[in-house]
C-alpha cells in the first residue's frame, strides 16, 4: 500500500464496525490519519511493528494534542473523538487521529561486516492497527506467530546476501536452515540489530548489532537450527541472516511474542 492511504470514513459511515490499517511501511516516517473517532484501538494481528504511537485531540492539553502508545501488551478502549471541527495548536490543522510507528526502522542499514558488492534485502515491517467504531469491553491484542520462508536467493559471486526480517517486540524465534545444494557449501550466520537514528553514510553508524550465530560453513545436505529467546539473547528490532550461495537452501523463521518453551 502506498500513499494516499485508505480512509477510515467509508468504514465508519457504512457501519463496518472497524477500520483496519494494514500496510507495509513504505518509509520509516510513515504516518497515517483517521478523520473518524473510535471506541477502541489495538495493534492488529499481522503487525510487525510492536509499538504504535497515536496522537488525538485533548481539550486539556495546551496544544490540544495528546499522545499515546499502544502495543501487543496494551490496547486502548474508550471513546476518542477525532474533532475535525477543532484545530491543533500551533499548527492550526484540523483535529484528526494520527498513527505512526514508535519503533525505528532504517532501510539504509547495512551490517558492519558487509563489504562493497554484498547485497541486502529487507522484509518491510507491516504496520497493522485496528480502530473500532462500536464500544468494546476489552480488546485482546496479541499478534499472530509469524512465519517467514525463503528458499532460493540471488547472491553475487563471491559475496554475501543479507536478509533482514522484522523482530520488534518478539520474544522467541525458531530458525531452520538447510543447504540443499548438492555441490556447494553455504556460509550461514545470524545476527540481530537494534536500529538507531544515525547517518548511515558515516564511517561508524550507531546501530547496535549482536551476533547470534557466527557465520559458519553449512555442508551440502547439512542443517542448522537455532532458537532465539529474549531471556537468553535479548530483544531486537530485526534479525539479519547472511548466506553466500544461491541455494536451494530453505530458510524458515518462526517468530512469536511469547517464548514457546
Amino acid at each position, binding site marked *: 500500500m*502506498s*500513499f*494516499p492511504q485508505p480512509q477510515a470514513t467509508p468504514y465508519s459511515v457504512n457501519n463496518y464496525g472497524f477500520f483496519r490499517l494494514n500496510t507495509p511501511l*513504505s*518509509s*520509516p*516516517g*510513515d*504516518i*497515517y*490519519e483517521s478523520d473518524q473517532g473510535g471506541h477502541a484501538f489495538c495493534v492488529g494481528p499481522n503487525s510487525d511493528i510492536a509499538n504504535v504511537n497515536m*496522537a488525538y485531540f485533548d481539550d486539556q492539553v*495546551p*496544544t490540544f*494534542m495528546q499522545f499515546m502508545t499502544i502495543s501487543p501488551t496494551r490496547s486502548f478502549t474508550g471513546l476518542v473523538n477525532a474533532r475535525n471541527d477543532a484545530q*491543533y*495548536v*500551533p*499548527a*492550526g*490543522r*484540523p483535529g*484528526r487521529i*494520527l498513527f*505512526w510507528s*514508535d519503533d*525505528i526502522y*532504517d532501510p*539504509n542499514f547495512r551490517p558492519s561486516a558487509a563489504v562493497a558488492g554484498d547485497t541486502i534485502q529487507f522484509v518491510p515491517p507491516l504496520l497493522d492497527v485496528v480502530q473500532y467504531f462500536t464500544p468494546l469491553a476489552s480488546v485482546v491484542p496479541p499478534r499472530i506467530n509469524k512465519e517467514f520462508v525463503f528458499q532460493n536467493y540471488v547472491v553475487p559471486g563471491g559475496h554475501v546476501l543479507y536478509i533482514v526480517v522484522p523482530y520488534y517486540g518478539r520474544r522467541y524465534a525458531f530458525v531452520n536452515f538447510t543447504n540443499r545444494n548438492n555441490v556447494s557449501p553455504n556460509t550461514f550466520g545470524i545476527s540481530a540489530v537494534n536500529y*538507531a*537514528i*544515525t*547517518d*548511515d*553514510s558515516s564511517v561508524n553508524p550507531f546501530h547496535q548489532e549482536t551476533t547470534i550465530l557466527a557465520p559458519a560453513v553449512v555442508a551440502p545436505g547439512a542443517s542448522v537450527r537455532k532458537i532465539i529467546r529474549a531471556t537468553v539473547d535479548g530483544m531486537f528490532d530485526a534479525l539479519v541472516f547472511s548466506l553466500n550461495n544461491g541455494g536451494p537452501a530453505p530458510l524458515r523463521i518462526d517468530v512469536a511474542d511469547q517464548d514457546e518453551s
Partner: protein
Amino acid sequence: MTFATSLAAAAGQSYDNLALRSIANQVKNVLTVFCSQNLPLFPESQPDSHPVSNWLTVLSAIANQLPAVNITLTQLTQAAKALYGLCWMASFLQSTGGISISQGNTLLASYNTNIAFP
C-alpha cells in the same frame, strides 16, 4: 555535523543535530521556526502532502511543550524521532510524487538553515 545533502541524510542526522542544538539551548526555538516556515508549504487542501503536514503538526506540538532551556533526554529523543519521521516521509513522498521536488528541496533547505549544525 554537516549540511544534509538529502532528506534521508537529514533524517539520519536528526538526533545528532538536535543534541548539538540542545547544548546551546536552541531546540525549542529552531523547531518552532522550522515548523512555522514549512507548514504553509504543505496546505490542508493538498491531501497527498498530509503525511508531511501531519508530521509538522506533531513536531510543532512537541516543540511548543519543550522548555526553552535544559530539555531532558526524553524530550530530545521524542523530538528527534518526530524529525526523523518527518524527513523520511518527505523523502519518500518527494520520490513518489506525493509532494513536489520543489517542496522537498525547500524543506531540506529550511532544515539546513535551522537545524543542521555545521
